[in-house]
Structures are given as C-alpha cells and as structure tokens.
C-alpha cells in the first residue's frame, strides 16, 4: 500500500501509540502487535519492535533505509479506558488511511480523556475493602470497618506516592497501616473478625494489572516481559508480607 506519510512520521506515530499502550497497562505483546500492524499498513517494508514493561524499541525499514526510536516507560499509570481508546484508534487508522496531524490530534485528545474524581477514587478503595471483608466471611461490622479502613488506605497510598516513595515502601506502608488500623478498630468492635477484614482490605494492594499482563505475556511467548513482571509481583507480595509482619508488635 502506498502511503502519503513519510517514514519519519510513521515512526513518530507508532512510537507514540506503542508508548501509550505500555504506559496505560497494556501487555508487551499488544504493543508489539499494534506497532507492527500500523507500520505495515503505512507502507513500511519491515517493522522490528521489542517491548518490555519498561522500554520500547522500534525500527522501521523502507526502501533499504532504517530508522530507530526508543521509548522509556518510567512510570506506569494504569488507565484501561485510555488503553481501550488507543486500541480502537489503532484499529481505525489501520483500516482507513489517516493523515499525520489528525492521528496526532486524536492521540492528544485521548491523553486528555476523562478520569474519575478523587472522591470516587476514595469510594472505590472503600468499596473494595468493604466488599472483600464480606467476601472472606465477614458480616455487617466487618463491612463497615473494611469500608473505612479501605478509604484511609487510599490516603496512605497517595501520601506515599506524593513523597515519591518506591513501590516496595508504598505497599509495605499500606499493609502496615491496614493491620494497625484494624487493631485500633477492635477496641470499638471487640467481636470483629480480624482475619476476614485484614484479608479484605489487603486485597486493595493486589497488583491486578501486573498479574494479568504477566500471564498474558507468557501466553504470547514474551518470556522476557513476563519474567520481569513475575519478579515485580513477588516483590509486592514480600512488601505486603513485611507490612503485615508489623502486627507482631501489636500482640
């Protein structure tokens, strides 16, 4: 297919899209696949792409000329809605040729996309904490305690992120705050089912995106990306365990 876009423009587009897929919580394989498809659709003879969770390396080749760009993904900000929109944008530009400025305009529009308000974010933490406390065998009291402790964990996590603490410290602090706050709550609700509430609130800290992407990377035979994610998940688990270990002091 002949394309009106220059090689340089195609490279800019695929880098921008691939970078966003990885940043918004897509799998490494999705980034590689999308970049290859768009590159081919816009007349590149060869597209070589290598993606892991933290970096992206793209070379496009046309008429014997090759160009390379790399992107470093330093901070993942999971946003599955934007991932969905980037995905449908790349479908659209693959099926019908679009000019450079329009594509870049769409990408900028997606970046500006809506996000839930901070208040709803706190409510989501509270909902997860409360629901999981019931899920693991709690009753009404466990729901109430899980609800409020979950909301407070949001502040702990946001505070840690504000201080730019490493994820390990953030998770350990979240887990430590959870067990400590629930211990305090037992003074008001002596019959509280401590284990159900603790498990319920700790579920907030589960790195869901990492876990699913890790599995899907292995399915797609991206073992490098998958192994890195396994290590990260294990580190989060160790951090949470360390935080729970604080409860030794409260006995």
């Amino acid at each position, binding site marked *: 297919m002949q394309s009106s876009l220059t090689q340089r423009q195609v490279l800019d587009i695929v880098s921008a899209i691939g970078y966003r897929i990885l940043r918004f919580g897509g799998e490494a394989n999705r980034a590689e696949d999308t970049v290859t498809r768009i590159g081919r659709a816009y007349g590149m003879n060869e597209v070589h792409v290598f993606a892991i969770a933290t970096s992206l390396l793209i070379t496009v080749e046309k008429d014997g000329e090759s160009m390379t760009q790399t992107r470093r993904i330093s901070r993942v900000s999971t*946003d*599955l809605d934007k991932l969905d929109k980037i995905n449908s944008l790349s479908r659209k530009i693959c099926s019908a040729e679009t000019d450079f400025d329009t594509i870049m305009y769409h990408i900028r529009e997606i970046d500006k996309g809506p996000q839930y308000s901070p208040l709803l974010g706190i409510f989501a933490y509270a909902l997860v904490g409360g*629901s999981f406390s019931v*899920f693991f065998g709690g009753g009404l009291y466990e729901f109430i305690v899980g609800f409020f402790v979950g909301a407070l964990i949001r502040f702990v996590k946001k505070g840690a992120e504000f201080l730019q603490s490493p994820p390990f410290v953030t998770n350990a602090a979240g887990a430590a705050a959870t067990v400590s706050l629930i211990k305090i709550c037992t003074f008001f609700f002596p019959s509280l089912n401590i284990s159900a509430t603790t498990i319920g609130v700790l579920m907030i800290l*589960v790195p869901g995106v990492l876990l699913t992407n890790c599995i899907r990377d292995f399915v797609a035979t991206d073992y490098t990306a998958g192994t890195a994610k396994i290590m990260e998940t294990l580190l989060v688990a160790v951090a949470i365990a360390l935080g729970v270990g604080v409860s030794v002091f409260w006995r």
Partner: protein
Amino acid sequence: MGSMIIAVLSAFFATLGFAILYNVRGKNLFIASLCGAFGWICYLVCDAFVDSTMLPYFVAGASIALYSEIAAYAFHSPATLFLTPGFIPLVPGGAVYRAMEACLQGDISGFAEGMVNTLKIGGSIVLGIILMSSLFRLIRSGIKTVKTKNAKIKRHS
C-alpha cells in the same frame, strides 16, 4: 444458599471498585464487574459438584478468561479490560494470609502448608487462564491464516 448470594454480590462490588480504580468507564464498567461475579459463580457451582480444591479454581480461571475473550471480541476492546478486574476475586488472598499468620506464630509446618496451598490455587487459576487465552489465540491466528491463504489462492487463479 444465602451466603453464596452474598459472596457473589460482594465479588461483584469488589470487582466494581477495582474497575473504577483502573478507570474503566461506560458500559465496560458493568461488563467488567460482571466478570468477577461470573468467575465466582462458576467457582461455587463447580465446588458444589466436585470434591477437589484445585479443579473449581481452574474452572473459574478458565471461565473468566472465556468471558473476557468473548466480551473483547463482541465490543472490540482489549480482553485485559475485563480480565484484570475480574481476576481479582480469585486471587488466593486468604490462603496467603493464613500462611503468613502461621509464619508469624512460628508455626513453620503451617506456613509451608499454607504456601503450598496458595501455589496450588494460584497455579490452577493461571493454568485455566492460560488454557483459554491460548485457545483463543489459536482460533484467531487460525482464522487469519486461512483468510490470507484463501486470498492468495484467489489472486493466483
């Protein structure tokens, strides 16, 4: 029966919370939340008929993967959108916690038992998801190959 309904409902709302955290919006929010509830229903149904710890988790993992792949196909969205929140209720948080509790009490055999139990559950879920996702990849790449082959044959003749 009542406790089962409560468990499924709480799985639904917990998944909803996670979907909000991951900024899933619009109708996808409901579909993703349903994924978590669906996984737990499949777990409970299988658990009622089979006397095994691993098989119900395997079935639940396979069913959420199937659900999200079908939803992804129907709504032209990435399967991660539904699988990531739906996966959360299956995470064996309880087993890990009990292992950790045993460890803190100095009960090493209890800790080892708990960790093995966690690995069994986690492995079954992951195996279920891997099986279904691989199957879907196979179907997709199979359809693509057949289509391109057909196009080539047409061009030659």
